[in-house]
Structures are given as C-alpha cells and as structure tokens.
C-alpha cells in the first residue's frame, strides 16, 4: 500500500536509517577497526542531525495515536527500542563491534516494525483530515532545532 503523504518524510528517514543499520552490521562483522569506528561515527552524526528529532516526533505525535487505538504493546516495544538506541548513542566511549552489530540490529528491526506495523495501523486509525493535520504538525516539528528536543530519558523509561 502507498504510504500516506503525512508519513512520507518519516518513511524517507527510515530508508536512511536502514542503510545505516545495515552498514553498521557489515562493519561490525568485518572486524576492521577503522570501518567499525567509521560506522559508529556515522551513527553518532545521524543521531545528532536526524534521528533524535525523528524519535521525538514519533513519540510526541504518532505513539499517542497508536495508544489511543489500543496498540499498547507495540508502543511499549517501540519506546524501549528508542530508549536502548538513545542510551547507546550517548555513550561514545563504548564503541565495540559487538554493540555496533546489536545497535544495527535494533535499528533495522525497529524501522521494519514501524513500516510494517505502526505506520499501516496509523493510516487505518486516522481519517484523511487527521492525517493531513498530523502531516502539518510533523512538518512544524522538523522546522525546529534539535535543542528543543532534549530527550527525556526518565520519561522514556517509566513508560
């Protein structure tokens, strides 16, 4: 099914995330220290430029809709994955291959879950008008700077 226009920008970012996730897994399995370090760097850069805002936008605007639609288990899992990735990307001192592969795996699985389960569910839950409004809200969020998205980890972990 074609993605609702409101969700297209996030889906596009999912493509980037998938690419990064697979590159991370390949680098981890190569055992090459330089490639491993590069992959970590790419993920840290992506976290700062795109991922942190992307996570925040989903948490603020998409997950509450899914919860209202009764998808508590799905949202809990997505939040746990967000928190695990966020924690990992905040610990630049721990850059082992094993964690890199795990991070790639979690990111890839997370994006798949959102594309295959969360987004189709949102498209089913929201009517055309609500989807259009959601699209505007998402666009408004992505105009702001990252500083405004200070990630509240404690709030994450109690959810």
């Amino acid at each position, binding site marked *: 099914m074609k993605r609702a226009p409101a969700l297209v920008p996030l889906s596009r970012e999912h493509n980037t995330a998938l690419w990064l996730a697979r590159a991370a897994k390949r680098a*981890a399995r190569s055992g090459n*220290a330089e490639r491993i370090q590069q992959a970590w760097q790419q993920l840290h850069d992506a976290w700062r430029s795109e991922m942190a805002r992307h996570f925040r936008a989903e948490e603020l605007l998409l997950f509450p809709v899914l919860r209202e639609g009764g998808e508590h288990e799905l949202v809990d899992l997505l939040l746990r994955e967000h928190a*695990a990735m966020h924690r990992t990307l905040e610990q630049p001192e721990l850059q082992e291959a*094993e964690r890199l592969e*795990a991070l790639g795996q*979690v990111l890839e*699985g997370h994006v798949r879950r959102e594309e295959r389960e969360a987004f189709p569910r949102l498209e089913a839950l929201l009517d055309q008008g609500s989807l259009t409004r959601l699209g505007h809200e998402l666009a408004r969020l992505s105009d702001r700077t990252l500083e405004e998205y200070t990630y509240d980890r404690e709030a994450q972990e109690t959810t």
Partner: protein
Amino acid sequence: MSRPDIEELRRNVDQIDQQLVELIGARMQHVDQILALKCLAGLPRRCEEREREILERIRAASRQQGLDPELVEALFKRFFNQASSYPKATA
C-alpha cells in the same frame, strides 16, 4: 490410495514445509531483536528460567498434538544454543 491422492498430499506437505521455514525465520528475527536489545543493555544472552518455561509449554503442546515431545524439545534446544553465538561479530 491412488497416485493423484499421494500427489495432493505431497503438495500439502510442501506447503506446510514452506510455512514452517517462514515461521522459523520470523522467530529468529524476533529472537535476534531481543538479543540485540539485551546486548545494548549489558544483559546476559540466555535466561535459563525463560528457556525452562518455553520447554514446558512446547512439551505440553507436543503431547496435545500427539507428537513425541523429545523431538520438538531437541529442535528448541538447538534454537536456544544459537543464542550463545550472538552477535556474529567477532572483533
């Protein structure tokens, strides 16, 4: 039993084999995700209590299906052992 009957039964078996492989693949994907989350959280890969629970459940389910519980149990033990070699990175 005529030849066409056997052919049809074989087609059913082939279909079920395909579904089995797909289900095992889906199970592995979920398990890999759990193992990756555990790795990021610094938790041990395997949990004996959880493995025991799974084995109890599948033993009961096997008996209900009239299957040899040991056969099914052996398959699940192979699944559990695979978790020990996660992740694939060696460095």
